[in-house]
């Protein structure tokens, strides 16, 4: 199943295909950040960072830089021409107000109701939710980009046992093994990665998966 780097690249390349030209997109720190590097030709998106900018340059592309310009992790970042800076209040008006087309976030757990837990492990990790709850509750589309399992244990469960990030159902879950769409009826297995069987995905998943007659093979951005 390849190295961890391969897995992340697979996920990022698949998520990239979900973005549309002109979309306002917020990419979480870590894996989701890679998505911007695999956009199809002709698709330009505007990257938002919740600390107050639209028009961040994708990772590794310098853009215009300044001491007073960082990403949501506090790391230096660049901006593209046509970028805009604003305060935290405005930033979350964009996120909650129907202006943010897509948010891509990492996940600790997703369950059969399509609910996400990604901000806290009681007794272990108490980082605070930052902007995650606002993003998941407010964005027009929520895409969870995460590895299918953690240390061999399924992360797609019948019911999340970690504190939820939002009761809102996420729109898509992309892992290195599969693309899963949460629906009213449950989790639909839409695609499997090249070389991965439906049974392998089911074995790595605690939640019940709805398997349509044909499950296509995951297509990745070039």
């Amino acid at each position, binding site marked *: 199943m390849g190295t961890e780097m391969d897995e992340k690249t697979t996920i990022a390349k698949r998520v990239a295909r979900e973005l549309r*030209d*002109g979309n*306002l997109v917020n990419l979480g720190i870590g894996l989701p950040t890679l998505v911007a590097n695999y956009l199809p030709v002709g698709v*330009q998106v*505007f990257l938002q960072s919740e600390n107050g*900018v*639209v*028009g961040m340059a994708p990772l590794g592309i310098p853009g215009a830089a300044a001491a007073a310009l960082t990403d949501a992790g506090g790391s230096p970042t660049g*901006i593209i*021409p*046509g*970028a*805009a*800076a*604003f305060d935290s209040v405005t930033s*979350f*008006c*964009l*996120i*909650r*107000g*129907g*202006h943010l087309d897509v948010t891509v976030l990492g996940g600790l757990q997703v369950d059969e109701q399509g609910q996400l837990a990604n901000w806290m492990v009681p007794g272990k990790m108490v980082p605070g939710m930052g902007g995650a709850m606002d993003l998941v509750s*407010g964005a027009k589309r929520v895409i969870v980009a995460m590895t299918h399992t953690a240390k061999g244990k399924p992360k797609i469960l019948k019911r999340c046992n970690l504190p939820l990030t939002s009761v809102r159902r996420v729109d898509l879950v992309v892992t290195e093994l599969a693309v899963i769409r949460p629906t009213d009826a449950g989790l639909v297995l839409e695609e499997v990665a090249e070389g991965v069987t439906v049974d392998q995905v089911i074995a790595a998943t605690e939640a019940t998966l709805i398997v349509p007659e044909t499950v296509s093979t995951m297509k990745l951005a070039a």
Partner: protein
Amino acid sequence: MSKVTTIEEAVARIPDGASLMIGGFMGVGSPHALIDELIRQGRRDLTIIANDTARPGVDIGKLIAAGAVKRLVASHIGLNPETQKRMIDGDIEVELIPQGTLAERIRAGGSGIGGVLLSTGVGTTVAEGKQTVEVDGETFLLEKPLKADFALVNAWRADEYGNLSYELTARNFNPVMAMAAGTVLAEAEEIVPVGVIPPDQVETVSVCVDCVVARRN
């Protein structure tokens, strides 16, 4: 991905019966050319959400005079006797809202806020029919979000992506309305190439704007 279009095409997107937020304060900072084109194209039965209706023959006042308006949500119509007359005659349904409440309700509409609690209007006619909420012993009116199908805003400068900046008191309701409508048409004094407006001077972020038109002079 330039959003620059002609005034005719921009206004053609608006159907009869649509709800429109229109920026401006007594005509200052109103999208003059878009308003004129609405009248030229003979649009009817519009709902207008705006601070005021200016004076007769000026900006939104022209829409009133043209009989294009079915319903008006505003804070003030005092300087336009024609609006008052049409209201009293029953030609236009008018809802009057305190100016700060109007601003906050539009902001809520564009910001994913389910409602704001304000004391403005408590115990007055403005409170009639409104839900009240008590917080720590104090009573507030629950003011609901306002949205519209379209916002017609006036900017000083726009770039081709739709980033907007405004000038002095011509700003007024324009930035907040540009957040609260399904489709946003921006009229600018000047359209500049992308990158010319410094990021710190962008007041409406490009992603909120659908069409940019240059004002005719």
